[in-house]
């Protein structure tokens, strides 16, 4: 049995890195991520964590140093937010395309300008074509569990891709919740030593990222696509194992709430799914047959799992906390294109973009949007395919 401690989301990330016994941390401070690496620095200083903290002058160097350490065989970790993540972007691709396992926490925050430190998913979703496994937590316990699982998934030989874990800044990052921490010995046994395809440690001369022919280059990227497919299986296995050992199983790439007899589905990702679940519980009491599909991993995207749930449904409403300007919310467009593979007769699909720049969306907002969606369809009308829900 583990122990219960009160942790902020950021501290839950730091403790997960500690339980994974990371060797190297390289990071640069940015709101709202900073308290993760402050906590890790504290744990190193007190001797509780045997690791090296590399202090760098920018996020670009933070991920470069994390990548370099990981290439040399270290279990390496970093964390960032917003502008910092954008500044890292070049090394986001280097890490995945070099097939190097690593874990990074993204404490999500809006993008500038205007300057804004409130949470949305714009920074996180901006990375979705980079070849990283991308998981997103709903509460602080899941932040801990997902971050720890990220090391296991990343270092699985069937995957060998880096993993980023998202959590909303402030909403999770700076609020406190009781989190159950496992026993270190059980974690050690389960996680095992670091695994990777190759190391560059100076013992033999090797060059990473040399010029390659187009055909070789393409074949390497085709293998990343294959690894993403493998990751779907690995994520589910890891969820199962973790459930057996530590008592918490989340359902793999998605979590389904009130789905059994649902005719309508609301899809979302992240902390605001908690408010969405509240709203759905309330609507259930009022007799609306609706369930929630919470996306836990958006890369690889869980097309099959969602299709299994929604194939007999009348309507699916997708809540996005980021916007692909000129298109729609990225979760919606991904889901829509994916489901088309299974049927020419899609359920009615609708997208709501909201909460951008940290606009607070409550369960009342969700309840209002959901009842309007359901009642429009029940009347025989078609709800708008895209709505930017704004309030002040």
């Amino acid at each position, binding site marked *: 049995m583990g122990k219960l401690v009160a942790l902020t989301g950021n501290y839950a990330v730091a403790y997960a890195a500690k339980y994974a*016994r990371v*060797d*190297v941390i390289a990071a640069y401070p940015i709101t709202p991520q900073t308290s993760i690496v402050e906590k890790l620095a504290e744990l190193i200083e007190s001797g509780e964590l*045997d*690791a*090296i903290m590399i202090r760098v002058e920018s996020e670009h160097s933070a991920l470069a140093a994390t990548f370099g350490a990981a290439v*040399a*065989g*270290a*279990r390496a970790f970093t964390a960032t937010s917003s502008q910092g993540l954008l500044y890292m972007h070049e090394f986001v691709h280097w890490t995945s*395309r*070099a*097939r190097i396992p690593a874990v990074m926490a993204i404490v999500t925050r809006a993008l500038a300008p205007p300057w804004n430190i409130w949470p949305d998913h714009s920074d996180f979703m901006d990375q979705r074509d980079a070849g990283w496994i991308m998981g997103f937590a709903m509460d602080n316990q899941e932040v801990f569990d997902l971050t720890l699982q990220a090391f296991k998934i990343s270092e699985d*030989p*069937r995957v*060998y891709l880096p993993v980023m874990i998202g959590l909303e800044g402030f909403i999770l990052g700076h609020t406190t919740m009781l989190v159950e921490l496992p026993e270190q010995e059980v974690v050690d046994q389960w996680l095992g*030593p*670091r*695994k*990777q*395809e*190759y*190391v*560059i*440690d100076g013992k*033999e*001369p*090797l*060059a*990473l*990222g*040399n010029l*390659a022919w187009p055909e*070789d280059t393409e*074949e*390497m990227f085709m*293998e990343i696509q294959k*690894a993403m497919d493998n990751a779907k299986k690995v994520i589910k296995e890891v969820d199962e194992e973790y459930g057996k050992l530590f008592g918490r199983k989340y359902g793999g790439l998605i979590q389904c709430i009130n789905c059994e007899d649902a005719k309508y589905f609301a899809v979302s990702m992240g902390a605001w799914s908690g408010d969405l679940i509240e709203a759905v519980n309330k609507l259930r009491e009022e007799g609306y047959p609706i369930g929630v599909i919470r996306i836990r991993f958006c890369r690889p995207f869980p097309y099959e799992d969602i299709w299994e749930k929604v194939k007999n449904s009348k309507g699916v409403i997708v809540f996005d906390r980021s916007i692909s300007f000129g298109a729609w919310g990225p979760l919606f467009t991904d889901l829509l294109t994916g489901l088309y593979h299974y049927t020419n007769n899609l359920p009615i699909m609708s997208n709501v973009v909201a909460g951008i720049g940290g606009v607070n969306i409550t369960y009342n907002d969700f309840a209002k949007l959901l009842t309007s969606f359901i009642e429009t369809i029940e009347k025989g009308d078609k709800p708008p395919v895209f709505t930017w829900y704004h309030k002040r």
Partner: protein
Amino acid sequence: MVKEVQIVKTGIKIPLAKPKIGVAGKTGFWRITKPVIDYDKCVKCFLCEIYCPVNVIRVEPDQGPVIDYDYCKGCGVCVDVCPTSALKLVQEE
């Protein structure tokens, strides 16, 4: 600081290269002009060996510079740095 790492190979294609001679084929055929040496003028100063960007010149203690024409691309840097004009570029046939 690596506590423990296991190399578990899966045979995936990775962007990793080992250095070897002629990894891009025999690049000598790219040459349109060729550096030739007048051994009477050479003072064995080693500048051509030091400056050669593709590392194909060796200055042998007795003989002087020896150029590996299989890989010399004829860039002419050696000719530029030679203090005694012992190296000249001639047109390739």
